[in-house]
């Protein structure tokens, strides 16, 4: 049971850390997009 709780805690910590990082990056960014998949030319984002 305690190992399961540890896993839940770790997953929450990673999620919190990643979302905090993303929020900080996007807040100070100019609206550029991070796309890390392949070499295809990136079209403009239609949801901005």
């Amino acid at each position, binding site marked *: 049971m305690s190992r399961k709780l540890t896993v839940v805690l770790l997953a*929450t910590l990673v999620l919190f850390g990643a979302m905090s990082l993303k929020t900080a990056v996007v807040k100070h960014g100019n609206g*550029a997009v991070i796309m890390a998949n392949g070499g295809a030319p990136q*079209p403009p984002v239609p949801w901005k």
Partner: protein
Amino acid sequence: MPGPLEYCIWLVCTLLEGAVVVCAVKSQSFRRYIFLNLYMGLSFLVSVFRYQVLSHYGMASSEYVYFYYYSDTLLTIGLYFALLNLYSLVFDEMKVERFLRLGAILLLGGTAWFSYAVVQQSSHRILSHFAYELSQNLYFVGLVLTYALWGAILKMRETRARLIQLVLALGVYFSAFAANYALQNLYFKAGVLRFVTPLLGCVLPAAWAYCFLRVSEEARLAPSRLVAVPR
């Protein structure tokens, strides 16, 4: 429309993605690194279909835009599973697969929930925006997970050379995109940066293909503490 250099980089990147799967099959590692290979195979197919859509409809068409961002979400989920494949290999002797699966599902579910929560407040095109937001959020989750895995490898003094190189390549890949993003924010008018992003896309398949081709599964790295000679 993209220029000849961009097409050339894209072609090289696509060929490298295919080369990863070929090298893995050749070195009889396809099943051991199944999600890495599935991700690379999927990347190859997506690149081919993206080219088809781009050449048929054009860069500014909604068909290409939607196909690009939906396929990007699919690829980011694939990359997430490839990373989990590396986690399961690093921790395979500890018999914690069940907990890894639980953590992976929780993290993916949490990221999807967070993405939905953001999108719900700000968009009327919920599904498309959700796909885009999920891809962006999973990128950051992948970034944090890669650094956590690298920390675990250092702590556990992992010696399997191929596994270490695969994880390091992923770390370099994520870090390079993060640095590129920072540069884009600083010098967003610099034209050269539009070639850098697709070039960075070649880093991961090139490193993984090299790793499958040149580094054998049995190769080991000597931990520094064992190598150091006491005075």
